[in-house]
């Protein structure tokens, strides 16, 4: 099947138009001169200028970034450990409960997670702030990390680890020198996923943040509740740009690596 039928072409065209047109409109109108966001009044970057001077947004962005870095790093460590336990540890007491606790947060409505964590923090008298958001984000994003990492671990040839042990590694060395380098791509994408989830989260952060720590989604949400604003368009454009560059760069890197591997394999085959 080398060519697409007209039906498939139409599906793809309409589908991608539906996915991308709203964002394209958003980006175009972030450069609108007018305060009225639905009327085009000429090109301008003034909203970006105003955005940079908006201290409240900058503070919120800084909080969000710190929360995302801390929580995703913590979630990656915990999630990788959890994946390793799930795939490699065999039977242990409460294994079913453990795997249930890994998978349940993936589909749990955010309002419930947020509410329950808030009630916990109040119950133990923890002041709400950056720390509580980090704890909350770590909890739900470690589950995503562990799903990503365990899907890689399942396809991992266990004899590699056994070979390392056979050659004199301790289990910890075998993990560090053999397992980790091989599952590294999955761990990295797990980290990126956790990072994005944290940057993105509104509901859980709203429950677990205090007056001292407002994240960017909370700030955006309270702004857009009042309607469309060009400043938010500008902010959205910046966020879309960062993500697009990141995703394209990541896919180019993996594609390059795959192509290099294929070339090397072909070259090796020729020398036979």
């Amino acid at each position, binding site marked *: 099947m080398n060519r697409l039928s007209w039906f498939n072409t139409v599906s793809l065209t309409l589908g991608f138009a*539906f996915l*991308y047109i709203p964002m394209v409109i*958003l980006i175009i109108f972030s450069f609108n001169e007018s305060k009225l966001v639905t009327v085009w009044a000429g090109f301008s970057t003034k909203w970006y200028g105003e955005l940079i001077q908006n201290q409240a947004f900058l503070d919120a962005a800084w909080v969000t970034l710190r929360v995302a870095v801390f929580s995703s790093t913590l979630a990656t460590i915990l999630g990788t*450990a959890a994946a390793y336990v799930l795939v490699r540890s065999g039977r242990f007491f409460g294994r079913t409960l453990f795997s249930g606790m*890994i998978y349940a947060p993936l589909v749990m409505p955010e309002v419930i997670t947020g*509410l*329950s964590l808030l009630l916990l923090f109040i119950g133990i008298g923890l002041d709400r702030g950056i720390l509580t958001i980090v704890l909350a984000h770590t909890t739900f994003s470690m589950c995503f990390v562990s799903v990503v990492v365990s899907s890689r671990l399942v396809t991992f040839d266990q004899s590699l680890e056994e070979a390392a042990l056979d050659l004199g590694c301790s289990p910890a060395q075998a993990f560090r020198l053999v397992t980790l380098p091989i599952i590294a791509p999955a761990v990295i994408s797990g980290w990126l996923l956790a990072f994005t989830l944290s940057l993105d989260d509104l509901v859980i952060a709203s429950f677990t943040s205090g007056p001292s720590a407002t994240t960017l989604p909370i700030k955006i949400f309270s702004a857009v509740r009042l309607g469309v604003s060009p400043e938010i368009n500008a902010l959205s454009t910046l966020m879309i740009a960062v993500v697009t560059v990141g995703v394209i760069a990541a896919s180019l890197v993996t594609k390059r690596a795959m192509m290099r591997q294929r070339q090397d394999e072909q070259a090796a085959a020729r020398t036979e």
Partner: protein
Amino acid sequence: MRRALLIAVPYVWLLALFMVPFFIVLKISLSDTALAIPPYTPTLDLSGGWAGIKDFFSQLDLENFVWLTEDDLYWKAYLSSVKIALISTVLTLIVGYPIAYAMARAPEEWRPTLMMLIILPFWTSFLIRVYAWMGILSNEGYLNQLLLWTGIISTPLTILNTNTAVYIGIVYTYLPFMILPIYSALERMDGSLIEAAEDLGCSRLQAFWLVTIPLSRPGIIAGCFLVMIPVIGEFVIPSLLGGSGTLMIGKVLWEEFFSNRDWPVASAVAVVLLLILVIPIVLFQRNQQKQTEAEK
């Protein structure tokens, strides 16, 4: 020893920050509202010893749950959440299936790019993707401007702050969750199966109905659950795109908690919501398990 530690750390973390909070929610849902900090009673006082614990349990009751059944706001909200979730799941399937199908039939060298294009919106902020529709669907928004300009309509349509806008928002934001599992099911399918069906006398359409659809069923089921379960508890979409007529339980819970500061009722709402979700979650897990077993 090391193994025990490796198991214990994530285990304890999840117990403390996932399981324990649920029991707290359950407990508070059985408590009464109080004008205090925290705004509910009773509070567990372990210094009172056994009598204190007994006293604590004796004060718990199902009052809040009774309240949920009496005020029709709540059960209407549950019903309408489930209804919105079901309808939007079907809509997402109708929109997503042809896209997944076309992706699976596309030349192999295009597929990674198409995949990336599907995943890319998923990485951008959910909030921003919902927000983008506010400008499109409002009365003086781009869609109305386009329709007025082409002369299809003469007065602007009211779409924003209606259930229609909620459906559009849900289909838009949850589309990748539907496409990806269906795509992976279709892509694995052996192309000679379709040829075999045609060889045995099927028309194109019959082959699609009798072979392609049944073989992509695990993907369809997974996609539907991945959309339906989170949509039932959705908060952002109904509160930004929906109107006063849009009743969704996530929004009710939020308002109960933040506006009315009625923690026990909010907790009771959460408990019931969780009970509703248990069924589809269990079904979803079973479907996934069956699929992983089939692949072995």
